């Protein structure tokens, strides 16, 4: 029987210095992007949006027609958008990362399509005068947007989206008159609760 050959250690692969440096920079960027998901979604901003939604729910409940109530919520959506953009930018600035670095860009790309679909469906349902589905549909699509955008973020973000989806599903099978209450619970209550959790645990 032939003696077994001693195992040879593999010859080290020579990597040019500049390739090693580029690899290190890539590693740093990727780590910063992944770590940035801890900070991309603004908690305090989310809670502030929740408080404006509570005010919108109160104003909407005093409107003489359903259509006017819907307009109050559309105005609230515009205000929430402005608040969201400002607080995302403020949080990115505080963490010294570009606004559309990895996590911010991934969140925007996941979040935007369901919101766009929501806007189109709102216009179509308003044209047909069918407003009773709007609260459930808005909660469902907002939840979908948060799950989709937040799938790259910390676990609490997609979890918030799932809660919105559950609330939206409940709104769809409930009487239309409960719509404003569901909106208040979702865009007000859930938003404030999760906003405070994110602010406390994930850097503001």
């Amino acid at each position, binding site marked *: 029987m032939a003696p077994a050959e001693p195992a040879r250690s593999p010859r080290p692969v020579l990597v*040019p*210095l*500049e390739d*090693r*440096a*580029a690899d*290190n*920079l890539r*590693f*740093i960027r990727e*780590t*910063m992007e*992944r*770590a*940035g998901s*801890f*900070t991309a979604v603004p908690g305090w901003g989310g809670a502030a949006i929740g408080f404006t939604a509570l005010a919108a729910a109160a104003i909407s409940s005093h409107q003489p027609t359903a259509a006017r109530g819907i307009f109050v919520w559309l105005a609230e959506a515009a205000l929430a958008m402005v608040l969201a953009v400002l607080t995302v930018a403020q949080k990115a600035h*505080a*963490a*010294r*990362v570009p606004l559309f670095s990895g996590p911010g860009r991934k969140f925007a790309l996941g979040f935007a399509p369901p919101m766009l679909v929501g806007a189109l469906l709102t216009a179509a349902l308003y044209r047909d005068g069918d407003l009773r589905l709007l609260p459930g549909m808005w909660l469902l699509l907002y939840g979908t947007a948060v799950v989709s955008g937040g799938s790259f973020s910390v676990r609490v973000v997609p979890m918030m989206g799932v809660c919105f989806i559950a609330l939206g599903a409940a709104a769809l099978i409930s009487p239309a008159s409960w719509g404003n209450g569901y909106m208040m619970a979702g865009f007000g209550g859930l938003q404030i609760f999760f906003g405070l959790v994110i602010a406390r645990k994930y*850097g*503001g």
Partner: protein
Amino acid sequence: MRAKLGTATAERISKSRTQELRLSAVSGEGQEPLAPALDRLIHERMRLGIVSALAVNPSLTFNELKALLRTTDGNLSVHARKLEEAAYINCTKMFDGRLPKTKYRLTAAGRRAFERYLDHMESLIRAAREK
């Protein structure tokens, strides 16, 4: 002709030597440094990951860092301690209810060291491009 070729070769060798010196200097291996030596403490992958993650967060807990860097408790604590000893990060131990929690922050010295390391890597790439 031969003299011309000789001059060209000498120039090429001299250029190559300058380049080698420049690369070795930025890599921290040369005798005549043209740039500060490489910070070996940050250069290690796990420690580089810890510092990079803390550079974009005000603070991170031990468990957040462990999940982010996909490592074990032992490995993370060894490398975090080395950074702590160098005063690149500071560590706060606290209780969240009944659960002990360890929080890490990047110090000013750590941020400066990280920025120096980034400059170092960029100068390596720049030097190679000028070759």
